[in-house]
């Protein structure tokens, strides 16, 4: 177990900068999930820790040692790949023990470790099969097993669950959680999946085109997104955004519509341009007289327990969570309000939270 530190880590391919300076400390035994849109540099960051990509600038420390110049095998890390990358011609047992064998560990120790990992991952009955004879979920577990037997200081996962079907992904997610509780190894986990990020992480790291937008616990990131990007990226459906200028106690949208807000943060001057963000679940259906604004329902999306009504207010798409019992229909007008404490304010120019 170990601490991982990024100190001004940069990466460029030729003259294309991909990572623009990452500073971050991951505590001993912490599970950090990296999320971000495709191509933002998540894998690149992970691969630099693994030693599969040279580091262009800055330093990466693992367990108090700079590892920039170390070979992957000397970094004491283990990595799980999206497509598992198992050796196709080796049995599960050989796959798991290959790394240990190269390390010249004794046969007895190897079998002990493999047996232990197989038990944790419920692979014991599959040890003599080749990867071809396994299902996707089982292959995934073997890939995890190969990482576990190494007993590394750091686990690196690059979208390990994204090749699985939805149901299996949920099961494996729970298993990952269990596994982490059991092993408590410092882990860096890359994913596209918000739910995975929210449920697995001690802290999550939201990336956007090579910079870190926000680092925090899932709760912090969800409740206090540091920027418009994070507000948009985390949460399904995305947060509603209405852009406009402050006019006294009201917000005047770019199209000229006005609605009463009440309390503004003191840093927003009269006439200052801002973006107001409010999550779909924080929009309340209220009697007409109390409504701040209203939308006409253009579409309703039923997702089991809830329904989401899609409408428009002054050129901005507004999504509102409805109780299934409401019985609203397409075409209905919804008078809406929100609790001023539950809205988010962002600077219109920088996108930063106010």
């Amino acid at each position, binding site marked *: 177990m170990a601490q991982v530190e990024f100190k001004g880590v940069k990466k460029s391919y030729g003259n294309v900068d991909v990572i623009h300076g990452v500073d971050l400390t991951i505590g001993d035994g912490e599970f950090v999930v990296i999320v971000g849109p495709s191509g933002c540099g998540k894998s690149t960051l992970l691969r630099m820790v693994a030693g*599969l990509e040279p580091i262009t600038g800055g330093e990466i420390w693992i367990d108090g040692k700079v590892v920039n110049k170390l070979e992957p095998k000397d970094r004491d890390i283990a990595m799980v790949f999206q497509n598992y990358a198992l050796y*196709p011609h080796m049995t599960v047992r050989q796959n798991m023990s290959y790394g240990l064998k190269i390390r010249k560990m004794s046969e007895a120790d190897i079998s002990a470790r493999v047996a232990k990992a197989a038990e944790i991952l419920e692979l014991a009955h599959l040890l003599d099969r080749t990867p071809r004879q396994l299902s996707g979920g089982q292959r995934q577990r073997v890939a995890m097993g190969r990482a576990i037997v190494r007993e590394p200081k750091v686990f690196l996962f690059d979208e390990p669950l994204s090749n699985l079907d939805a149901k299996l992904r949920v099961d494996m997610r729970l298993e990952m959680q269990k596994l982490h509780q059991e092993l408590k190894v410092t882990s860096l986990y890359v994913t596209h999946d918000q739910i995975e990020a929210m449920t697995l992480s001690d802290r999550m790291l939201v990336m956007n085109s090579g910079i870190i937008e926000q680092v925090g616990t899932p709760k912090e990131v969800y409740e206090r997104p540091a920027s418009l990007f994070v507000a948009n990226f985390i949460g399904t459906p995305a947060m509603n955004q209405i852009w406009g200028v402050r006019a006294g106690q009201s917000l005047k949208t770019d199209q000229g519509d006005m609605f009463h807000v009440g309390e503004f943060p003191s840093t927003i001057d009269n006439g200052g341009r801002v973006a107001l963000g409010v999550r779909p679940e924080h929009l309340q259906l209220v009697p007409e007289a109390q409504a701040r604004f209203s939308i006409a329902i253009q579409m309703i999306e039923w997702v089991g327990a809830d329904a989401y009504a899609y409408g428009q207010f002054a050129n901005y798409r507004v999504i509102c969570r409805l109780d299934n019992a409401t019985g609203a229909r397409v075409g209905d007008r919804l008078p809406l309000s929100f609790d001023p404490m539950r809205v988010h304010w962002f600077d219109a120019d920088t996108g930063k939270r106010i």
Partner: protein
Amino acid sequence: MIENRPFSTFLAHLVLCIGVVIVALPLYVTFVASTLSAEQVLQSPISLIPGDQLLNNYKTVLFSGAGNQSAQVGRMMVNSLIMALVIAVGKIVISMLSAFAIVYFRFPGRTLAFWLIFITLMLPVEVRILPTYQVISDLKLLDSYFGLTVPLIASATATFLFRQFFLTMPDELVEAAKIDGAGPLRFFKDVLFPLSKTNIAALFVILFIYGWNQYLWPLLITTQESLYTVVIGIKRMISGGDAATEWNLVMATAMLALLPPVLVVIFMQKWFVKGLVDSEK
């Protein structure tokens, strides 16, 4: 073609039978001729029923030689075998290693190396045969196994095939091996080589036959009978000039020359077919 139509079934069989006759008849005639005596084989039309000289003929060619030369076919078979094996194994080893270098290492001149190899694909043995002959002759390697085999070992085709195969290996496999601590040679030995087995088997069959059937090169490079390959041997037996060609013995030799490639194909068939259709990744 699941429907049951008598006429098309008949037609299909007819075509097949004609095909078999076209392919098999010459072989059969060769076989029959190799069992006749020297007089019988010269009769016209030639008998289509095997004669009684089978053992005699084969014994003669294998152990005492035939025609206007005294080299034994047994000896020639050994020469051919050595040549075919050295060429097949040599080509596979060299081309696998060079493909490995080209695909997995970044060294200066890597692209150049690849293109040079690739360009030689366009030059078959026959085109570069004179310069190669010059080199071998200057090195005083005429009439040696070395001269017979080594110049044919360099192979762009096999290198190219292995390169393509290696390129289909997922990058993650290499990376997983790196993290497991396998160095390049270890990776080659433990991962790349086992995964290439079916390809190697398929290539071995093709290259063995290629080596076995070489004609022009051994013809140029060998002057001693003790180095003749069986393909050359057959040719020498025929060009009798004034002496009569013993066709029964020539045919027996031809049958013998057929044997090793056929055996290789039969024994490697399972792997061979697998290598051509399978991709085990």
